[in-house]
């Protein structure tokens, strides 16, 4: 199960992800990110503080938007990853391609 809340704060779009991102639930995540990117937001922050688990399919969602993020020069920042989830990002090597910050404050600093 996954719960996704999107809110606009100051100069960025905040996507709050909660629960587990597995093969079936990550489809929702994919749709939300796709919309946000298409809507032309330049600063997108993903709050993963309450993301307990991410499967390879969930990682695939983040990975699939890499090209467009780069192309459109979007500040796409993930923050609040738990140690376990962060490790999954690291093993795959996604940490080298995505901007991952510890906290929301760090993320906000990164976009300004």
């Amino acid at each position, binding site marked *: 199960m996954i719960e996704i809340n999107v809110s606009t704060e100051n100069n960025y779009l905040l996507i709050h992800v909660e629960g587990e991102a597995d093969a079936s639930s990550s489809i929702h995540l*994919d749709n939300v990110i796709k919309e946000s990117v298409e809507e032309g937001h330049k600063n997108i922050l993903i709050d993963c503080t309450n993301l307990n688990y991410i499967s*390879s399919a969930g990682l695939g969602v983040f990975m699939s938007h890499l090209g467009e993020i780069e192309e459109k020069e979007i500040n796409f920042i993930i923050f609040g990853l738990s140690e376990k989830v962060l490790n999954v990002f690291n093993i795959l090597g996604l940490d080298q391609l995505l901007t991952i910050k510890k906290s929301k404050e760090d993320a906000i600093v990164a976009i300004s």
Partner: protein
Amino acid sequence: MKFKPTTKLISRLSITLGILLWVSIAAIQILQVLAQKSDVDLGLSQEVPRLLLDLFFISFLVYYHFRIGKAETSNFIDLLWRVFAIGLVTTIVSLAVELFYTTIANTTLAENEMLATLTYNINFLAISVLLISTFTVWKKLVLYQKSRRLVVSWNIFEALLMASIFFNFTGLVLQNSVVFQLLYGVLALMALVLSANMKWVAYLNFKQKWKSILLILLVTIYLVYFFRLLYVTDDSSTNFFYEINNLFVFSLFTFLLAYSVFSLLVILFNLPTSSVFERKLEEAINFQRLSQSIQKGENENQIFDILLNSSMSAVYADSGWIEIDKNGDEPLLRTRHISRVNLNEVKKLIAKGKRKTLLRNPLEKSSEEDRTLVNIRKSNFRSALIVPLKVQNKIAGQMYLLKEVSDGFNKEMINIINTFANQASISVENFRLLGEALENERYKEELNIAKSVQRALIPKKLDHDESFEIHAFTEAAAEVGGDYYDTFKLAESKFALVIGDVSGNGTSAAFHMSQMKGIFQSLVQLNLSAKDFLVNANTALSRCLERTSFITLSYFIIDTKERTIEFSRAGHCPTLYYSKSKGSSEYFQNQGLGLGILRNERYADFVHVNKMTFEKDDIAVLYTDGISEATNSEKEEFGYDRMQKLLDQNAHYDPIMIQKIFISKLYEFCGNKDLNDDYTMVVIKFK
């Protein structure tokens, strides 16, 4: 050999014996007449002819018991017809004798006592045959659908009746013996009580009832005729009856007459209700047909046809149709006695007509599920009943029943239609479920084929030489999975080894896994360095992977001559390596990026190649995240630390044993929670 008398043999023997006995009875009587005439005493006691008579009755009882009683027939008309036929023959014989007497009325022959005795005996034979055969048939009728109590009371009655055969030894007669009267009273009472058993009548249809009435009436007439012949005197002055000296015959007469009269009355009174009974029976049969239609492999249309026919005959409908919605397509129509044009007109009129809703349950709100009664005007049909047909909790269609009279449907009719509609729904539902089950079975079969195809992609033999031992294990969560491992002998003492995991699992992962196999087998031929291999594999996969799919991979080149390992990690789980000299294991912490994540030439920047030497008894454990990330019911992961400890503790074992320990510990850890990912491990131990 043991001799076993057959029914045929017994009936033949008994009839022969019976006729012989009758002949001897007649002969003795004639002899007695002759002896009386010439004043000669035959020296024959009274008991002999009496015994002969009793044996004669018994022979005939046995004969008819086996002839009629044992015959397996449930057709009552046949039985009654048989009695009628026997009665007819016996009556004709008797009438012929009488006719003969009238023709010789004024001749001396008529005075001949011998002839009189003979004709008496012929009559007697005829009566006995009629009485005993009728008795056997009546017995069958009485005992139709017998209960235990009935059987007991019947057996008592029959035993008493059989005993009464031998009552003639007493020489008592009804007119002046209390014992006779008492016994007769008991038998007659029992006969009357037993005569109330006529369940068979209920199973006759209208036509059969009329036939039965006719046949029983004729049998009654025969009985009365013979009774008159035997017992009623011509002059009704002083003694109305002849001497009644045979308790058996008299009781038998009583029972047969009583049962005949009772049957006649019961059938007569049952005549008006027989059509209702027939209808109920027909409804029950139709109901059965509806429930059994599945087994006969009939299709949905046939079920609807049976429903329509049964419903129409149950309510005497003049026309009707069933309309089944076909998800937007032209609805399926099954019609009876109504044309399409007429049907559409009637439908319009129904929409306009005065509706009366019949709710099954007052709490049920949905108007779609209501049975509706409509009175129609301006049509030859005056009333309609509309019944929705529900299949798998959805309204699948409607049944319309039309009658040419107004208010033509009563409560009983609506009830029976409801039952029919429900049963038909169940049948259709079962039919559809059966179809779905077959379809699922087919998919399962397909998946099993996919499984065996994928099994063939996994190498059966792993390339190695005497410098290292290698063992692999893989299991998919579903029929097919996305885990992959393979080996290739690049040169003498040079081996390539790969382990990979496709993102996601199931069928889509399995397709990508087979692509990976193709890419590995092609690129490995080129004897590339680990870096070139990964870069080329990434380029190839970038063109064929789905947008959100990627593959993680670890690629190894083992050189057993140089005793080196060159390895690169493309986002795959870090390899667990046990060093004998250190006496502990650790994970390779090199950088890397999964294949298909960066689908351009920049990927090369993320490939890191490491090289190391191996020593004797070093162990490399390659695995997929199905193992490291397996969770138990507390959502705890199997994890890297546990694996590391396991390897440290079991490093002295060979690869097969190490794999077995890992997997059994993994199962132990997960408990009854199913593994929901594919899991694979390859263990290498150097020598």
